[in-house]
């Protein structure tokens, strides 16, 4: 553009004519407009940042709260289901290590270490219904109850200073025997085709013999009565055992 006074060349940034010093009205207006726009821009930018920061902060707070709630619920659920989760983990481990575990179970059964079978199966959640453990189902079930019979007979034999009455011990032994004799009933396994009866029959026979020995040695039950206990009712067993205990005292 040209200066209106001297005709010299001017730009929009020249507030005064560099040649004659007269005020450049067009440039002044432009500069004032630019300054106003710059001010509006800064103000608007500040407002935008302020609002965005507020929204960002709120978003972070809400997300944090939701995450904390989700983590808390997850932890409570995990804690409440600790047994189920550990059982699933152990059952998975039992499936992966089936070869090793079944070999150990069979070794213990052959060596007559029935309480170790009970403890091992309980620890690894092996109940004998899943392959390949179903081969040993009758023995695994019997081992679980054999341990209870052992402890109940010996506690009854040596009650200690704070022991209970003979009747209570006899009832407990009879109850444990009831569960054990149920496990010996081979007809309950007729639908299980994979059972290895060579191993199971030997183990069941030995467990039954051990229990007869326990009853005759520690509770004074006669051999004939010990042989017939399996065919008696639980109540009759309790009476017979109590009588034997009282006679032995």
């Amino acid at each position: 553009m040209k200066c209106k006074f001297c005709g010299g060349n001017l730009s929009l940034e020249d507030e005064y004519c560099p040649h004659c010093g007269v005020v450049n009205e067009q440039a002044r207006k432009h500069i004032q407009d630019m300054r106003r726009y710059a001010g509006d821009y800064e103000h608007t930018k500040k407002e935008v940042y302020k609002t965005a920061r507020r929204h960002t902060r709120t978003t972070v707070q809400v997300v944090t709260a939701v995450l904390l709630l989700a983590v808390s619920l997850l932890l409570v659920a995990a804690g409440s289901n600790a047994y189920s989760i550990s059982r699933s983990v152990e059952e998975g481990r039992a499936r992966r290590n089936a070869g090793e575990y079944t070999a150990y179970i069979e070794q213990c059964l052959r060596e007559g270490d029935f309480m170790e079978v009970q403890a091992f199966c309980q620890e690894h959640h092996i109940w004998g219904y899943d392959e390949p453990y179903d081969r040993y189902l009758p023995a695994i079930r019997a081992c679980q109850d054999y341990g209870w019979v052992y402890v109940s007979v010996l506690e009854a034999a040596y009650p200690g200073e704070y022991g209970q009455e003979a009747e209570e011990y006899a009832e407990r032994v009879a109850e444990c025997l009831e569960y054990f004799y149920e496990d010996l009933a081979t007809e309950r396994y007729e639908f299980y085709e994979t059972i290895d009866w060579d191993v199971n029959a030997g183990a069941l026979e030995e467990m039954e013999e051990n229990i007869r020995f326990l009853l005759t040695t520690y509770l004074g039950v006669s051999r004939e009565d010990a042989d017939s206990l399996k065919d008696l009712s639980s109540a009759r067993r309790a009476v017979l055992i109590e009588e034997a205990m009282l006679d032995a005292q």
Partner: protein
Amino acid sequence: MRNRWEEIVKDTRRLILDIVIAVLAFGAVIALLFAISSYREVYADSYSVDSYYYYMEEGNYPRLVELYYGERDRQEPKDGEKKEFYAVARYYEAASYYKMYQENGDTERAKEQAEKMEAARQEMGTLSGEAENICRQLEIQAP
């Protein structure tokens, strides 16, 4: 005026959210402790040394055997003191079977149990005196 009111409302909302976050953080810590406690209970070695000591003092050795078979580390005990209690339990179990087989004429199995008694006695350490108590209770001579 209106802007100032809006600011107050927004500040209050942020404060409430901060309080909610603090409460949820505390809740998460409690939930974590609960989960840890639950899993420790499931995977615990189960019984304290005091339990073994109590039953042993009472002469209730069958219960020692029961506790022993409830332990996860019964094959390789981590605790030295518990190792001795485990040995007492195994000694009693073997001794009870030894007497049983002896009295019923099964000398072969009785001999096996006698060997187990000796092996367990070697590990009883400071509790080796319990061998005599056990034999006295069962009315047997140590083989």
